[in-house]
């Protein structure tokens, strides 16, 4: 099983003066149960691509195969409900989607829509409330009494509670403090490790280096590259040309190399960088 895009294009507002290409002949194949980073500039087509994973947008041409579904321009929306259960999407600032009178009811909303009984949904909701690091005591509070960071977690619990096989997240840690950000990413990494696919849309190259197995790079609606983090961060000139950053550790290593201290292979993370420096200066591995 894999996630397969075959020549997928998407056009916004077709046949109007406002027509705009969102995706342009995108083809790739992703392995399941991996942590995949989707990077690129604002407006590069990342969000458009993301909304194709669960068919909120359907391709204008081309074909998508994932989670046992085939999506073409003519696939009927009503045939996609089971797809939505298997492929879940978390938008930027997802706290905006909260609406129920209690935290628990809000988390249970998704599971109930996907056919769990009230009791099952409630059980799942309680489980995920704790998994995202919130105390059980807030279960019966109104979500609107919580702090911004807590609301974010409730919203994410609400999307993970039906345990989708594929979880797509658009900048889920935006606006969180460093600790909150770290906790959130660890949560997704752990979810992936338990046999799910995680697709993370991000601008943060350190997160790509720290967590991703596979990287998709978008530009102007086209797939620029599909490769591993170490490959994508290897070529500094290429990254600069496409306006992409490097992880801080690679940036630092590049400065060292410029000043006569090359470290190979290139470190992507703080741990790798320290490790290599220590090995270099202390000799031992």
């Amino acid at each position, binding site marked *: 099983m894999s996630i397969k895009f075959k020549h997928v294009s998407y056009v916004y507002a077709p046949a109007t003066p406002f027509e705009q290409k*969102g995706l342009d002949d995108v083809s790739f194949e992703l392995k399941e149960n991996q942590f995949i980073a989707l990077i690129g500039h604002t407006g590069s087509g990342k969000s458009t691509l993301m909304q194709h994973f669960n068919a909120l947008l359907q391709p204008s041409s081309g074909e998508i195969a994932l989670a046992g579904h085939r999506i073409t321009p003519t696939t009927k929306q009503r045939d996609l409900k089971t797809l*939505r259960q298997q492929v879940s999407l978390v938008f930027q600032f*997802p706290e905006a*989607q909260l609406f129920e009178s209690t935290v628990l009811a809000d988390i249970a909303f998704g599971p109930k*829509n996907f056919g769990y009984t009230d009791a099952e949904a409630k059980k799942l909701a309680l489980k995920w409330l704790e998994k995202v690091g919130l105390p059980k005591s807030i279960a019966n509070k109104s979500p609107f009494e919580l702090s911004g960071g807590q609301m974010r977690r409730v919203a994410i619990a609400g999307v993970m509670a039906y345990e989708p096989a594929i979880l797509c997240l658009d900048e889920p840690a935006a606006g969180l403090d460093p600790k909150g950000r770290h906790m959130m990413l660890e949560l997704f990494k752990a979810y992936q490790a338990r046999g799910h696919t995680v697709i993370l849309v991000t601008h943060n190259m350190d997160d790509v280096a720290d967590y991703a197995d596979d990287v998709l790079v978008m530009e102007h609606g086209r797939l620029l590259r599909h490769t591993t983090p170490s490959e994508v961060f290897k070529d500094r000139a290429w990254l600069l040309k496409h306006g992409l950053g490097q992880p801080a550790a690679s940036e630092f290593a590049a400065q060292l190399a410029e000043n006569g201290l090359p470290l190979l292979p290139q470190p992507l993370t703080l741990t790798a960088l320290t490790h290599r420096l220590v090995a270099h200066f202390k000799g031992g591995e």
Partner: protein
Amino acid sequence: MTKIIIGRYIPGSALIYKFDARGKLLVTFLFVFAIFLANNWPTYLVATLYTGLAIMGTGLRAHVFWDGVKPMVLLILFTSALQLFFSTGGTVYFHWWGLWLTSTGIVNAIFIFLRFTLIILISTVMTVTTQPLAISDAMEWLLTPLKWVGVPVAQLALVMSIALRFVPTLFDETLKIMNAQKARGADFNSGGLIKRSKAIAPLIIPLFISSLEIAVDLATAMEARGYQGTSGRTRYRVLSWQKYDLLNAGAFVVLLILLKVLG
């Protein structure tokens, strides 16, 4: 990604676009009264010509104006039909119970049809060639006399322009929330009336909360930027009369004179 058009404004640079919004709004307003001066074939011909020239002056394709008339078609036809069958006078072609088909009826029906259609066309000319913001400014100018009886015209105008400004923001927000709930399995498009109206809660509640949040943030930002009510404020955006506006006024005066002379 979403670039929706507020109101019916269609960007362009033809002659009518150069007219001041106040002039256009005023002429549109007065045209509604002027058309009542038309009462015979020559006057209706003049009014139709005037409207035709205005449409040509927009440089836009005809279907834009058809779109303006379309929603009103039934109403216009119904009113015309009333005239057609209930007017008496002239030669009687047909008579059955209270229904008459007379020469006067036919002429009246055509006149009514023209009157309505021309009014809609002229207001379409105004709305497609004038930005909503300029219309709002022009309204403020037209309402100026109300200031003397204590109506807070400047505040109303500010409210209107801010409301216009936030239409695309709220539209995007709606789309985003709708997508987020769809991703959680919400279904907005099937089931009966009750199911559908229930399904709307996950959309309406977050939207209401978002709007409140925007309102609070906006109020704070406005206060931080020194907003203390409209007294003592100066204005950056000022409408100014240009030579083109003489053309607008001239054409309308000629129309009035012809309607009066021929009527």
